[in-house]
């Protein structure tokens, strides 16, 4: 355990919201998140009644189904001290958009507000709530970081991952040009408007290539899969990983999309 992590006799009970993409495509991110949360002195649980935060239906205009999904998520997670997701996008959905979904419904408003107040994106939870300033990981190489839109603009995640990444032994950080510009994933956007999405991710891949980094990190698996897919297609040899894997020192597994 890291010296900066806060010890408690009664560790806070943290429920991990795994996210559907992590569950299906990249389970190692979930295990990295558990390791980091435990290092931060938390008792971690993984409620089994979780599937997805409801963004695909929400952003497609299907409020009724989204609300049904949200009610299920709230019921499964509301008894914990904190709800943490290794994704700015899913955390923002739970934290910022669930209250909008239930606005004007007196039977739910207070319950949703209490739930949303406990939701955090993983890295900001480690730093802002648990006071972590360093991790006990060693990874050699140069990494660049993409600021995924939801985490950045809806939750203010910017400084936190950089703070912890700077403490990783052997890791250099190279800033990414236009790091705050969308990668073109956008959930269903990338398949509904593939040509526009491609134009956007092409710029991103070029900037990653020019960064001089050998590793691209971000906090959202959707963006990571999108950027990795483009880098691989273009033959740009940059390893792509979720930031949690690096902070947990779990980089012995193959990167997202395998090696070139």
């Amino acid at each position, binding site marked *: 355990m890291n010296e900066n992590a806060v010890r408690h006799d009664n560790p806070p009970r943290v429920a991990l919201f*795994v996210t*559907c993409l*992590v*569950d*299906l*495509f*990249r*389970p190692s991110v*979930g*295990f990295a998140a558990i390791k980091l949360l435990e290092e931060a002195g938390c008792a971690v649980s993984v409620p*089994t*009644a979780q*599937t*997805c935060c409801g963004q*695909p*239906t*929400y*952003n*497609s*205009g*299907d*409020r009724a*189904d989204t609300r*049904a*999904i949200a009610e*299920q998520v709230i019921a499964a997670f509301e008894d914990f001290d904190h709800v943490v997701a290794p994704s700015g996008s899913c955390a923002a959905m739970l934290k910022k958009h669930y209250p*909008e979904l239930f606005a004007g419904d007196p039977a739910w408003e207070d319950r949703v507000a209490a739930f949303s107040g406990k939701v955090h994106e993983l890295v900001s939870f480690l730093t802002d709530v648990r006071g972590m300033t360093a991790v006990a990981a060693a990874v050699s190489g140069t990494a660049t970081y993409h600021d995924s*839109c*939801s985490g950045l*603009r*809806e939750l203010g995640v910017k400084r936190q991952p950089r703070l912890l990444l700077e403490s990783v032994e052997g890791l250099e950080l190279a800033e990414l040009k236009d790091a705050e*510009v*969308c990668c*073109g*994933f*956008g959930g269903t*956007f*990338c*398949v*509904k*408007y*593939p*040509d*526009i*999405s*491609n*134009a*956007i*991710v092409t710029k991103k891949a070029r900037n990653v290539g020019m960064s001089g980094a050998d590793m691209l990190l971000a906090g959202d698996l959707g963006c990571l*899969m*999108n950027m990795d*897919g*483009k880098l*691989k*297609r273009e033959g740009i040899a940059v390893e792509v990983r979720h930031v949690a894997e690096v902070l947990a020192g779990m980089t012995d*597994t*193959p990167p*997202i*999309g*395998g090696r070139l």
Partner: protein
Amino acid sequence: MQITSQTFKANSVKALADVDLQRALGNVERGFIDKRQKAVDALPEFDALRDNAVAIKNHTLKHLDLYIEAYVAKVQASGGIVHFAEDADHANQIFLDIARRRKAKTVTKGKTMISEEIGLNAFLEKNGIVPIETDLGEYIIQLRGEHPSHIIAPAVHVNRDQVEADFRRVHVDLDPMRSLVEPEMLLGEARQILRQKYGEADIGVTGANFLIAETGSSVIVTNEGNGDLTQLLGKCHVVLASIEKLVPTLEDMAQILRVLARSATGQDMSVYTTLSTGPKRPEDPDGPEEYHVILLDNGRSNMLGTEFEDMLRCIRCGACMNHCPVYHAVGGHSYGWVYPGPMGAVLTPSLIGVEKAGHLPNASTFCGRCESVCPMRIPLPKMMRHWREKEFESHLQPTTQRAGLGVWAFFARHPKLYRAAVSIAMPLLKRAGGSKRRFTSLPLAGGWTKWRDLPAPEGKTFMQQYAARTNGAGR
């Protein structure tokens, strides 16, 4: 103008392949963003000003009827005439009546998006009246037979070389040896032509950035001065403005002006801010003999009191499109009507109907950059989502998309079934991904794999692996 929002997808594919356009769009991406950031950084109270501006507009919209009434009374008191136009045709007809009565042959125009919205140029030409655009950008696209692709930089999609070629084609007296290499030289050439037109014009048409209830004034902000010449030199000045341009007082206008130019071009103020209040008075040395305001609704009053009311705060600064990755990729014409970018994605369906403009609110990654730079704090992504909800409710989305979503929602609502299904699917998908651990093509995922590989899953889902680990630990 002809609406092509229905073919947004095809428009955008064409735009992506247009080399000249892509070169021009690079300028939007670089110039506007840096300039705005510098202007904002230099003004610590910028966010407080934004809050102020939002409050002014919200207040005005809540009492719009009263402010319109007060405004009309003031315009009349200063000798002007206000005409109410329900829609585009009505506005055009009102204009034509004014023009016919004045036996107008030419009309100079400066600074009006509303004239694009009502298709005034085509209408005037059909009725034998010549409209002349006097803003450099507008003039260029008029020569090219095009429409604006941006609300403050209408010809941002055109390169300098193209402009030079257009001028040499149209300006028959232009010396072939004269250099037009610098933008200033192009401006000089256009100015020379346009200077003759102002004095000849029978009517000068402008838009309005604001209408001020306190004084009955219309206000335009410009950088070229063409707006001033348009409204002062013509014998008759017609202001085309929509109802949401009202603000209560001069002080309110001054407050909102402080965020307008900074958001648009990064200037503290635009070069000219010009207020017009009625026609020339006997003691005035110059000014128009007649002053008319055509106040256009065209669907806006239907937005009041709905989830789209916030959109009526828009002050047309263009910051949202300047910061939008989709706009950067496809340019303004792809959006298929007057208002492009994120603001167009909300406004266009409101004004012409979501059945014609449904692509626009869908073609967004919801990255939120538009909302973060909007000086009026308009929740643009949220309102695009409202349009998607309206589409969903009216079953306007493609059937396959709707069906796919329904399947996803069903499984998402039944965790046990979901677990069972994905526990079978993911290991199969992993095996299909092979030793490369990714797909270069995949049935049903063609939209993705057309342009990028798809990383293969790791195999067993997280929940499967986690259950195995915790059970093992428990035994």
